């Protein structure tokens, strides 16, 4: 036993050195990307990309009045993918397409990494009331869906509280109501590409305008009471 301990320790030490060096390189590269991303986000670029924060908020928290989404704490791969889709025109946006096109692929990844590293804004929805009533339309669709129409609940893919899951299912919590409404209507109109497995076009085909308004209000954090949800819905 005693004889084998020393060589093993030496081997462990060597492996540890290699791991540390590799990790060190990765961490340094990540820090570089982060700085590049931060510069783009806060100052824009010489080529004419505007500072992201001028619309998306100083902390990436989004802008409710303009319907500009929160980027803070959103998965980097998801954000990067969206920037590529804007650049190719696959995801339509007159505002975002020129900016996305002016960024290199590396620039898009870097700015995505930067925003993903920012803390999720405090005070947004992070869980669901365990006993939602069906009359609370937005909360009900979010947490139970409407399975007699084959409509899954939002939380079944976007996670409890709509906090987002993995690289594919973005957070809904803390997104401006106007942004969520625009996206859902965008899928209805074909302005947003179908996305993975074309899940969302099927989902929106089962949502009325009133449903969309109610569920957007729920995730914007000011989930409407039954009466106000109905009032808002009737404006459509």
């Amino acid at each position, binding site marked *: 036993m005693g004889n084998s301990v020393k060589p093993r320790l030496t081997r462990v030490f060597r492996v540890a050195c290699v791991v540390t060096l590799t990790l060190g390189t990765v961490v340094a590269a990540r820090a570089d990307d982060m700085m590049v991303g931060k510069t783009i986000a806060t100052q824009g670029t010489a080529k004419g990309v505007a500072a992201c924060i001028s619309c998306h908020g100083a902390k990436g928290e989004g802008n409710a009045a303009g319907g500009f989404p929160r980027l803070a704490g959103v998965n980097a791969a998801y954000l990067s993918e969206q920037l590529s889709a804007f650049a190719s025109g696959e995801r339509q946006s007159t505002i975002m397409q020129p900016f996305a096109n002016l960024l290199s692929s590396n620039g898009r990844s870097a700015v995505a990494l930067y925003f993903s590293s920012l803390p999720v804004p405090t005070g947004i929805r992070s869980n669901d009331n*365990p006993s939602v009533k069906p009359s609370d339309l937005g909360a009900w669709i979010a947490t139970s869906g409407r*399975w007699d129409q*084959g409509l899954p609940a939002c939380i*079944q*893919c976007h996670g409890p509280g709509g906090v*987002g*899951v*993995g690289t594919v299912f973005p957070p809904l919590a803390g997104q401006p109501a106007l942004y969520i409404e625009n996206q859902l209507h965008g899928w209805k109109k074909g302005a947003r590409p179908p996305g993975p*497995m074309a899940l969302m076009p099927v989902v929106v085909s089962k949502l009325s305008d009133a449903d969309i308004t109610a569920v957007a209000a729920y995730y914007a954090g000011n989930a409407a009471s039954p009466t106000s949800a109905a009032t808002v819905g009737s404006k459509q």
Partner: protein
Amino acid sequence: MIRQTWWHKALNLKTGMFLVYGALNGIAYAADPSTPQVTAKSSSSAPAKPFTPPAEATMPTNDFGKSIKLGEQIFTHTQEFAGKYVGNSLNCASCHLDAGRKPNSSPLWAAYLVFPAYRSKNGHVNSFAERMQGCFRYSMNGKAPPLGDPVLVALETYAYWLAKGAPVGEKLPGQGYPKLAPPAQKADYTRGSQIYAQSCALCHAADGQGQSSGGKTVFPPLWGAHSFNWGAGMGEIQNAAGFIKANMPLGLGGTLTDQQAWDVATFMDSQDRPQDPRYSGSVEATRAKYHNSPHSMYGQTVNGKVLGAP
């Protein structure tokens, strides 16, 4: 209420038809010898309108209603509300969609009606509570709550309420998981793995371990240490195929062909998972006693490994 009235009338007129549809749809529970045996062609040939359980808004709010509500919460947040009996990352609602309401997803309202029942799985008449003990022991890879435990009482209360107005002793359309006709081509692991990559891995991950968020399971693990164990019904390929055909991918149920459902179910049920709690110390003996079926891969060799071997 209109639907229920329609349904009651239809039942009076067409009880025979319902029994036929019930036999077509029912698979997860031991057959009652008095139920007409019908050779199933395909689940898609049963157009019957399913029973509609009471609307959520009509749930009573008295002390009885509180037990119904607790049962519903246990059902949808099993770890949170019945954690001491749960040994994996699943919820009851992982396989019984829409909080146990969805037809063809082994709905609670249909299960409630067909117990007590003789089950060949354990060779005696099982109460509904005992059936649910089996869910905890196998599907939840946990411990069976003792009979009379508040967890079982609340779940039974919830199931009873969902079944309100339905005929006791009958297998209703939508009961269990659909029984698919045998596949045209022998179900195949490799084809299944391709379907898995295309249609399942987005949510359940390439390694089948699912995904969680904020510490809560969102997409359940399909195999491995945190999934159901070898004693669970979902480990039998015909059950998994029926569930997948009717319900997967989530929101796109019915889009896979029967063949694809058989293939991907075979792939899923040919993976490692926690040991059958009835394991006797020998995989061969355990297979012979509990898994002696072409629908179970327990004890079979896949990719050079004997499934179920410690």
